[in-house]
């Protein structure tokens, strides 16, 4: 185990890189169960090939982020979150 923040806050840096702005207070709605949380309050899995943010209620994937050597890619499955820039998809 290592020193890791386990909230969406842990993805704040990567998200800010993609959106050019802080995203942790933006509300995200789970497409599966409808639970709404600020992105900073989502459950984060960072000990993986990418970052996975999941619903606090049902663990459904809400956001996935992969950083490749050339760019940062994001897949947003939660509702309400603004669409990411074309270059990050």
């Amino acid at each position, binding site marked *: *185990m290592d020193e890791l923040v386990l909230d969406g806050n842990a993805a704040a840096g990567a998200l800010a890189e993609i959106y050019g702005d802080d995203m942790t207070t933006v509300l995200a709605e789970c497409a599966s169960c409808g639970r709404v949380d600020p992105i900073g309050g989502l*459950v984060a*899995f960072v*000990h*993986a*090939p*990418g970052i*996975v943010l*999941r619903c606090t209620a049902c*663990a459904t*994937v809400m956001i*996935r982020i*992969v950083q*490749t*050597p*050339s760019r940062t*890619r994001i*897949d947003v499955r939660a509702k309400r979150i603004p669409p990411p820039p074309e270059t990050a998809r």
Partner: protein
Amino acid sequence: MPQPFITRGFVGKRQDAGGAAGRIPPGQHLVKDFPVLSAGPTPRADLRTWTFRIEGLVKEPAQWSWDEFRELPAQDFTKDISCVTKWTKLDTHWRGVSVDVLLEHVDLDRSAAFVTAFSDGGYTTNIPLPELLNGQAFVAYEYDGKPLAPEHGGPARLVVPQLYFWKSAKWVRGLRLMERDQPGFWESLGYNNHGDPWKEERYSGD
């Protein structure tokens, strides 16, 4: 990419590969522990309802209960494993059932060329069928002589040791045979469809 800024005195907790350097794929470093990586919460499988399935391009799908699966002929495997997060662990000891043995129970359609492994918790990964054949891959349920721990994929995980370890799906529940390659959980966001560590096939189109 701008040049990285080198941090004085930082080496990480990597081991010196020493005489094993020839067994470490490019860009990888040796570890002695067994890091736990996970894209989601660890499922706790109920062995009374657990099944393993082979489906897709087969004449009749095959399915085993936990007890039936444990009665299949098992083998011991000692393999080096490499994770795309850049660690390599040598001589890991597993016990499980070769994918060859599992496929003996189905009639494969001639068009089957790719496999999606699917897991509890929704994880998927795609693998070219030939990478799973001829004793290369197995479904493991013991690690180091003990039942495979849930954080390492227990009760059973796929192990495809010659590919990056994200292909070795934890909590695996079955294999789906397909004609066309279908990117899985990480592959659909930029990770490589093949994933050979010796060719450093980490990403696609990068």
